[in-house]
């Protein structure tokens, strides 16, 4: 029993759950709750994206596109077609999965910079389509989104959303950890380690890369849909190249190939701009500088660098 508790995985999950349960003590007003909810939603995307970037060793500069498909898909189905929000969310996530499957097959044959550009192109195309089809999406001004309803009850209020998002985050992390520690997870890490050797032991690298891509798209879309229903409003800024970059930075900053690192990366880089609102003017400047400095001096990411520093102190 004790070894089970002490394993990195269960220990980590319990620590996460405990931290999420205890956090409300520090959340003194609705604004703090808002930030916490935002962190949670970003963290869900990052956990999925980390499967693709950190474990499968691929890259995507267009994940805001999937986020947007989830957000707008759910918003449009719920607001314009009167679908129950939960069904809309599921359908939007499904659409994102299908699109990821269709687009992923040809572009995952690419590597490195070329893959980065292809995903970038994809993300931008999605964002332009969303901004231009204004009759459906409300265009650059955005559209309003009906609140989420679970079994007839509207989910509203900061505190309810906080618990919902926290539960979903723990579930998202649990699923990701399960995958990573399974033979499928090993296959992903193998193809990251050496694609040619992975094939030599029977791993269909194309299929596994696609699987990671689709799964990360579903995570992003689900988080997108939740964000839309939470905020009651969605604009194309959440589908932008800028947002894609923010997501990748959170994953890389937190430490690739570390699920908890992705959560921490999301936490730090979501709250950082909030702390900088006093310096609204300099926000972009500081964010850019932070991105550059951390990548230059901590290329492995925050969590692994911290771990190494602590280990060398002993």
């Amino acid at each position, binding site marked *: 029993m004790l070894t089970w508790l002490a394993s990195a995985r269960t220990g980590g999950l319990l620590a996460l759950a405990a931290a999420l349960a205890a956090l409300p003590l520090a959340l003194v007003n609705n604004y703090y709750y808002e930030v916490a909810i935002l962190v949670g939603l970003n963290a869900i995307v990052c956990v999925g994206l980390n499967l693709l970037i950190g474990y499968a060793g691929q890259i995507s500069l267009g994940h805001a596109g999937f986020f947007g498909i989830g957000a707008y898909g759910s918003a449009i189905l719920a607001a314009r077609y009167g679908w129950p929000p939960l069904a809309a969310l599921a359908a939007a996530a499904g659409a994102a999965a299908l699109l990821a499957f269709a687009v992923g097959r040809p572009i995952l044959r690419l590597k490195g910079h070329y893959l980065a550009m292809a995903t970038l192109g994809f993300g931008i195309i999605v964002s332009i389509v969303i901004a231009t089809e204004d009759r459906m999406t409300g265009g650059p001004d955005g559209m309003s989104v009906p609140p989420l309803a679970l079994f007839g009850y509207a989910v509203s209020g900061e505190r309810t959303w906080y618990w919902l998002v926290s539960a979903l985050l723990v579930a998202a992390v649990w699923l990701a950890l*399960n995958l990573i520690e399974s033979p499928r997870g090993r296959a992903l890490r193998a193809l990251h380690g050496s694609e040619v050797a992975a094939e030599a*032991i029977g791993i269909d690298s194309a299929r596994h890369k696609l699987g990671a891509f689709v799964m990360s798209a579903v995570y992003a879309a689900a988080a997108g849909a939740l964000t839309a229903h939470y905020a009651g409003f969605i604009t194309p800024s959440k589908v932008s190249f800028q947002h894609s970059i923010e997501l990748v930075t959170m994953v890389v900053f937190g430490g690739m190939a570390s699920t908890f690192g992705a959560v921490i990366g999301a936490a730090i880089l979501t709250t950082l701009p909030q702390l900088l609102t006093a310096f609204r003017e300099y926000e972009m400047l500081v964010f850019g500088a932070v991105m550059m400095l951390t990548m230059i001096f901590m290329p492995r990411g925050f969590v692994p660098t911290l771990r190494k520093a602590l280990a060398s102190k002993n």
Partner: protein
Amino acid sequence: MLLRTEKLSKRFGGVDAVKAVDLEIESGAVFSIIGPNGAGKTTLLNLLTGIYRPSAGRIVLEGRELNGAAPYHFAAAGIGRTFQTPQIFLNMSALENVMAGRYLHEPCGLWTALLRLPGLARAERACRDEAARLLAFVGLEEWAGTPAEGMPYGALKRLELARALASQPKLLLLDEPAAGLNPIETLEIDRLIQRLSARGVTVVLVEHNMKLVMGVSQRVLVLDYGRKIAVGDPETISRDARVIEAYLGAAA
């Protein structure tokens, strides 16, 4: 007859790296492929594992045609290999590397993985045990938990062998297993190959180290400029005039 090729060829631009090679490998044999540098040995190996698509010719494994298949198909058909420069998964430990090698024997459904359905834990334990056994077979049991990136070169070569064995291949292709090893390590490789052969694994060896080749093989194929110039048992080959000429050049 385990593996057979017919007029196997590979062309790169204007160069025939491998030209019309016919070979036949008997099950259980140790078969070596030798030849001067640039003779096309690694290209041939890459053809036999699906990394290169043949420009012409056929590859038949136990009656099954494999030309044009993806590399993982070759692996699934029972062909395993090691690489000239070890392609180790440096992002994992030694044990995990070998566990990864068990992929073909560890079918794992997506939902089984995601939800940790019962049976998975047991399968993982079995996988871990088998991997540990293979590490012991190649003499690396004390490195099990070590991150692969911290291991010395000679150990990495043996690790790659353990990983290749994990997939229980019918045919194991070793690309210069003795390259970069000192005489003691080379002797260990020699012994390992003999033990493998004794267990019924068919081994195909690409090697420069003639002592190793002649000592361990039953049959030797000689390549020069992509063509097969001789095939036979080690004794005959070492005395073949064409082979000597290929390595040392024609008499002046």
